């Protein structure tokens, strides 16, 4: 379980996140949506501990994650970043093995059980056949799966994803989201995923949080949050919401400004 309490972050004098509180339960996919510049990536980075907090707490089972050293925090929480400018010369296996860092000795030697975890993680994202390939040779979709496998190898109860689908084509978007939902349902991870695509959020998230201007405007099921009123106001665009033709989810259709 991930509990964010009153989180505030500023870049210089500019306040980027105001008093954000959010709770992601184990076994749940929480989608974080909002227009560009709303602070989605900042929230993911702040929770993962790479930028200093102005205020607030990040808890899991009572532990304050923000107060832990990076090595220990990395046992609670793994991050899937966007697959841009990865070091191309490492093999897929080497890359995923780096997810085991929080459990390795200071020489970075992997044990047999570490290797087992890596193999399992690669199987989970259907990328085991890529193991010996160099990351630089892979397509964007394959690279994104490798990063997901690396996060899985970290064996954490909490998983954060920062817009993992934005560079993927339709097929990879859907298969990535299916894997992510499986991780929550079968492995009981608490998943917080920043998403650009409202309809992916509608279809795959258990709950949705709408972030606008650094503040949480609404949290609830997709049907509760993806309403014409809330979305129009957040994105400054008239929208209509209909029922998805073959899934139990709302479908957001953008209108036009003119």
């Amino acid at each position: 379980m991930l509990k964010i309490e009153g989180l505030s972050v500023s870049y210089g004098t500019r306040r980027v996140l105001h008093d954000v509180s959010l709770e992601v339960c184990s076994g749940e996919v929480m989608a974080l949506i909002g227009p560009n510049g709303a602070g989605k990536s900042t929230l993911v980075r702040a929770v993962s501990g790479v930028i200093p907090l102005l205020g607030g707490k990040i808890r899991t089972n009572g532990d304050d994650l923000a107060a832990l050293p990076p090595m220990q925090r990395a046992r609670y929480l793994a991050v899937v970043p966007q697959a841009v400018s990865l070091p191309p010369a490492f093999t897929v296996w080497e890359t995923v093995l780096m997810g085991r860092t929080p459990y390795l000795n200071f020489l970075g030697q992997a044990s047999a059980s570490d290797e087992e975890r890596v193999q399992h993680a690669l199987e989970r994202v259907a990328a085991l056949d890529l193991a010996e390939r160099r990351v630089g040779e892979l397509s964007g979709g394959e690279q994104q799966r490798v990063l997901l496998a690396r996060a899985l190898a970290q064996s954490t109860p909490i998983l954060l994803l920062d817009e993992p689908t934005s560079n993927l084509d339709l097929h990879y978007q859907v298969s990535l989201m299916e894997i992510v939902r499986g991780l929550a349902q079968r492995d009981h991870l608490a998943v917080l995923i920043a998403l650009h695509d409202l309809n992916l959020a509608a279809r795959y998230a258990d709950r949705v949080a709408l972030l606008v201007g650094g503040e949480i405007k609404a949290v609830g099921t997709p049907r509760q949050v993806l309403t014409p009123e809330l979305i129009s106001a957040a994105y400054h665009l008239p929208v209509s919401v209909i029922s998805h033709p073959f899934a139990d989810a709302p479908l957001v259709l953008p209108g036009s400004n003119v």
Partner: protein
Amino acid sequence: MTNRFLPYLWTLLFLALAILLSIAIGAVSIPPKDLWQVLASQLTGILPDSLQTSAFILWKIRLPRTALILLTGAALGGSGAAYQGIFRNPLADPYLIGVASGAGLGAVLAMSVRWPYTFWGLMAVPLAAFIGAMLTVFVVYMLARVGKTVPTTNLILAGVAFGSFAAALTSFLMLRSTGELRRAIAWLLGGSSQAGWGPTLTILPYLAIGLGILILGGHALNLLQFGDDQAQQLGLPVTRTKTILLLAASLATAAAVSFSGIIGFIGLIVPHIMRLWFGADYRRLLPLSIIGGAGMLLVADVLARVVLAPQELPVGIVTALVGAPFFLWVLRRVKNQGYW
């Protein structure tokens, strides 16, 4: 499993060959048979009169020089690989980012304040070079930084500019120097020829610490290739790790520069070749660059002795002749394929 040790086998073989060449070849060449007899005489105590001269050359001149060049090459190869990893910059090299020149200035300043007659005085020279190196890293990094990133070519431009500045100050100090200092600075700029065992023993502890830390830092350098954010999310205390690695690399560079002079490009070429042949894993790349750097500089030094014999070229000239075109090749690769 054989695959894991093969790279070490090849580089060690190369190093062994380079050591043999370095001992055997010079103004007076020592044939392998004589070499063997001289070495064996250490055990047997029997040394024919005809080999007295060879023995003298070997113990007093050839071996100390070989040892010093070997250590210098090891330091440059290792710290080059480390700088490339820390800055995520394939063009980084102790010379090109100005650290070598900064260290040289530190060493010369220390020598001109007081010429090191004693052992502890000698030990202080690498420390002064180390301070010079660290100041240079700091200044160059600050100058090259744009926001949170350090563009590849910015680092090199700032490094070359600051390096030239430090080198100019060094030349100035040399011009107004006299006696012992002038000779010392001459080998600082050119590479050593008649150093004896003192310098070798002096830099050994500094190198052991610096290179030892770098070898242990292989996994951390691997993580840093993903950028600061991801490295920290994977569990690495990034700022502390980078600081320690920079200190270690600069210590190794400073020790190398203190008594062998400013030698460029070894730290650029060797890690690249090792990466091309044996992959990007820094846990392997660092030790291989250290061994390879030692071998490569020994070969360059042999060339420096042979090309214009009996005159000697400074070894830095040989490495620059090979290294500068190599630098341009890497620069083109970086432009064409993005960062490697």
